[in-house]
């Protein structure tokens, strides 16, 4: 597990649990993302000592710029922020407990990067990736923007999805039995090169790399090799976009899962009461 990448083994599990975890990782872990973008329209004056006047036009439509800003990952501290419509302190008006406001002020000719978004107030919320090009400006063009980020889940929009490439596979198990004559056909055929000859046996170097493709099984002239996936052990892997660390995403997803199962148990209890 690193900051933005994770690979873990789920043992004593089944596909139902692995898939539930996968779905929560994709759609239920909340993150911050820019939701409202306000553009300054008309002329924009240059900074002090700059006599030029700039026009608030860009090569891209404002909608496209707003959309691109929305996709920029915003670092999220889940203990700090509430969902905007459930916020106790402001009743959905927007406050420091549910929103982060960014300003962006750039004058052409230049490329506007995601790193040009300056958080108003605290500096901890600087965007995770500073080198995402947003738009390019030419001479006498400028961009003055206020953008508001809020908490959401990717059930509503993919920009709130903290993870990508979430997937799991059965833990592979390769067995070579006595019929093996060390012909080496399987070693050369393996697409991920994890088989080698060790003494007078075929050995597996990195079992977790196996994709269960069964090429070695088909290549073996003696039918000595079997590839199976263990039914109660899984390898789960995913990336994060930098809004949350890989570890935080996992902790949060497990919390959500427990909550969801708790709800189900409660509902079932109520159901029994009703039927009596």
């Amino acid at each position, binding site marked *: 597990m690193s900051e933005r990448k994770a690979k873990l083994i789920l043992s004593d599990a089944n596909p139902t649990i692995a898939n539930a975890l996968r779905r929560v990782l994709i759609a239920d872990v909340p993150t911050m993302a820019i939701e409202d973008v306000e553009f300054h329209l008309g002329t924009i004056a240059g900074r002090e000592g700059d006599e030029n006047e700039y026009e608030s036009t860009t090569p891209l439509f404002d909608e496209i710029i707003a959309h691109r800003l929305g996709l920029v990952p915003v670092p999220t501290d889940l203990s700090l922020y509430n969902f905007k419509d459930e916020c106790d302190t402001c009743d959905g008006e927007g406050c420091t407990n549910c929103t982060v406001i960014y300003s962006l002020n750039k004058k052409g000719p230049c490329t506007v990067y995601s790193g040009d978004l300056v958080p108003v107030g605290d500096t901890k919320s600087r965007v995770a990736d500073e080198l995402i090009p947003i738009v*390019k400006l030419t001479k006498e063009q400028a961009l003055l923007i206020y953008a508001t980020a809020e908490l959401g889940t990717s059930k509503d929009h993919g920009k709130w999805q903290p993870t990508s490439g979430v997937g799991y596979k059965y833990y592979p198990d390769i067995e070579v039995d006595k019929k093996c004559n060390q012909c080496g056909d399987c070693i050369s055929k393996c697409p991920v090169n994890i088989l080698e000859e060790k003494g007078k046996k075929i050995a597996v170097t990195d079992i977790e790399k196996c994709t269960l493709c069964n090429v070695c099984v088909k290549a073996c002239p003696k039918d000595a090799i079997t590839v199976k996936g263990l039914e109660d052990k899984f390898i789960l892997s995913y990336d994060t*976009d*930098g809004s949350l660390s890989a570890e935080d995403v996992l902790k949060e997803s497990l919390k959500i899962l427990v909550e969801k199962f708790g709800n189900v148990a409660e509902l079932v209890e109520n159901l029994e009461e009703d039927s009596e």
Partner: protein
Amino acid sequence: MIIPVRCFSCGKVVGNVYEIYRNRVDKGDDPGEVMDELGIDRYCCRRMLLAHTDLIDEVKKF
């Protein structure tokens, strides 16, 4: 037009590595190796960089 912020299929941010990728490929490096080093592993993200045509410099003149 301009490099998409995220991969269309999986949602990984690819915009942040585009300029590094472009510079190195223009210098003559192999695109596949550059993407490996930049951590663009899946083929959905790789096609985002590989198949992109940056047209914004052509368009912004108008």
